[in-house]
């Protein structure tokens, strides 16, 4: 009886529900830079709007763009788009690849793209067009595909190696993931097969974990990684930990919102960046022990000797892409510096959310040479983002064009931005 009563009440509750209150969105109006705020001399245009969940992107030498999608469009997960007549609008769109994913890059006549557990490559012709879109080579298979942090970002070096991020399917390796007060598993078993960067050969088929090398560990989830050709090293930006306030005896919601950094690392083979045992506190400017492992916000045991970040960004702003700028279009200060696309935070509530911009870090000889700065802002389209859903666009991927233009993808509506500089 009780059950029937509930269902009856429920039906009525649904039918008498009349208070629809959509979130108010204030769109940035008609700016020449399509709503973006940029430094002087720079301007932005939208090549394409509403194309779908556009994740990472790569631009060919003929100025076409490959876009990896995290949701299939008509059964396809990769788009090839091109402006053939040069009017600033895309007039050719092709699609292929029957898998969702995030990672995509080009290296030496091949297009590399990842699903959430495999990596494929496609031979390119002299115009960097895929020759046989239906017959890619599967080079890596069987990677951990957890529910969280399952995207596989990709980059290659000059020696035929491909680097793949395998994110941890966990926030902080707790016995109960994201459970209030739940302890960390010690040692964290996730690190055997995730929570790091793996190195594989680019030209070998069907590689699995046993064929790869755990190149770096202690990285919770890396979406942005790039090879720095100036000094021939791998650089990554990590999505730092969430929810310090699952331990309210040590952390308030405000402290969680502000403390655990998003870190940029230079990655030498074999480094340990500390996750899940340590996180970087932006206020104390050092690595401290995680509360899951007995930390109280001050202790630093277990954190001596772990890799230090070369840049610490604000908490939770979510670095989704990293790109070293090697073009000649932008002013000298940008040469060899790093652009970072921040998807924007969610784990700052009830504080206002942050991020939703593209930042720039100046570099000299492979080291940051000054403070980072916001380069392109305004993607969210609203003054204040309290809840991520309010953001109209969120930066996700970065690419450099053959002329030195910077491309940014957005995975909310699927907008592709092109940012140029004119003296």
């Amino acid at each position: 009886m009780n059950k029937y009563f509930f269902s009856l009440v429920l039906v009525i509750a649904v039918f008498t529900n009349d208070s629809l209150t959509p979130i108010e969105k204030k769109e940035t109006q008609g700016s020449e830079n399509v709503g973006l705020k940029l430094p002087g001399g720079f301007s932005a245009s939208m090549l394409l709007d509403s194309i779908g969940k556009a994740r990472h992107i790569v631009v060919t030498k003929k100025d076409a763009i490959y876009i990896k999608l995290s949701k299939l469009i008509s059964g396809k997960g990769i788009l090839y788009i091109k402006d053939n007549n040069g009017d600033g609008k895309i007039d050719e769109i092709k699609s292929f690849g029957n898998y969702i994913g995030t990672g995509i890059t080009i290296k030496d006549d091949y297009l590399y793209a990842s699903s959430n557990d495999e990596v494929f490559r496609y031979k390119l012709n002299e115009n960097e067009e895929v020759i046989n879109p239906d017959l890619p080579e599967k080079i890596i298979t069987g990677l951990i595909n957890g529910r969280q942090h399952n995207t596989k970002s990709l980059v290659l070096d000059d020696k035929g190696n491909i680097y793949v991020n395998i994110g941890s399917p966990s926030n902080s390796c707790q016995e109960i993931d994201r459970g209030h007060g739940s302890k960390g598993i010690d040692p964290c078993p996730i690190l055997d097969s995730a929570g790091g960067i793996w190195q594989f050969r680019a030209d070998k088929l069907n590689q699995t974990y046993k064929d790869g090398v755990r190149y770096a560990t202690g990285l919770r989830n890396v979406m942005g990684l790039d090879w720095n050709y100036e000094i021939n090293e791998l650089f990554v930006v990590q999505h730092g930990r969430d929810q310090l306030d699952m331990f309210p005896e040590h952390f308030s919601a405000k402290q969680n919102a502000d403390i655990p950094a998003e870190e940029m690392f230079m990655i030498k083979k074999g480094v340990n960046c500390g996750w899940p045992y340590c996180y970087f506190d932006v206020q104390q400017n050092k690595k401290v022990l995680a509360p899951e492992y007995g930390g109280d916000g001050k202790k630093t045991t277990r954190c001596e000797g772990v890799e230090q970040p070369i840049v610490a960004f604000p908490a939770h702003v979510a670095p989704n892409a990293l790109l070293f700028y090697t073009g000649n279009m932008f002013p000298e200060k940008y040469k060899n510096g790093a652009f970072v696309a921040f998807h924007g935070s969610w784990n700052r509530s009830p504080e206002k959310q942050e991020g939703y911009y593209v930042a720039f870090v100046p570099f000299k000889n492979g080291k940051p040479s000054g403070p980072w700065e916001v380069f392109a802002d305004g993607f969210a389209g609203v003054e204040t983002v309290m809840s991520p859903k309010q953001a109209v666009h969120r930066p996700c991927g970065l690419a450099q064009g053959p002329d030195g233009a910077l491309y940014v993808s957005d995975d909310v509506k699927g907008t592709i931005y092109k940012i140029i500089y004119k003296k």
Partner: protein
Amino acid sequence: MKRITVFAPALLIVIIVFNKILPIDKATMERGNKVYMQYCVACHQIDGGGVPGLNPPLEKTPHVLGSKTKLIQIVLKGMNTHEEIDGETYSNSMAPHNHLTDQQISDVLTYVRNSFGNKATAITPGDVKYVRARTK
């Protein structure tokens, strides 16, 4: 049989009136808000909008407005399946919240069912106790 056909619409009317004239009491909403701000807001957000791709929204979803038993079970057992709502998939994991008391769970669920544009009947501590006893 005949009695039921007469009785059912009458009951329906009574419930409609009941539902309309008996708003959720303020104290329950305040207690529910307190629990929400401590345990739920991080993921489900201040507006109940959730986080696209990660944390499901609580605005008029079948999970919130549907079966009370299932809703109570989500809080007690957490949720670790890819849930698709309106074409969007949500992949973050929700931990079990069985450390909350029957009162806290009933307060917060009643709050959620009557916030963010939702309007639905209250969940009582008795409902939670009943489901908890039958949930492994």
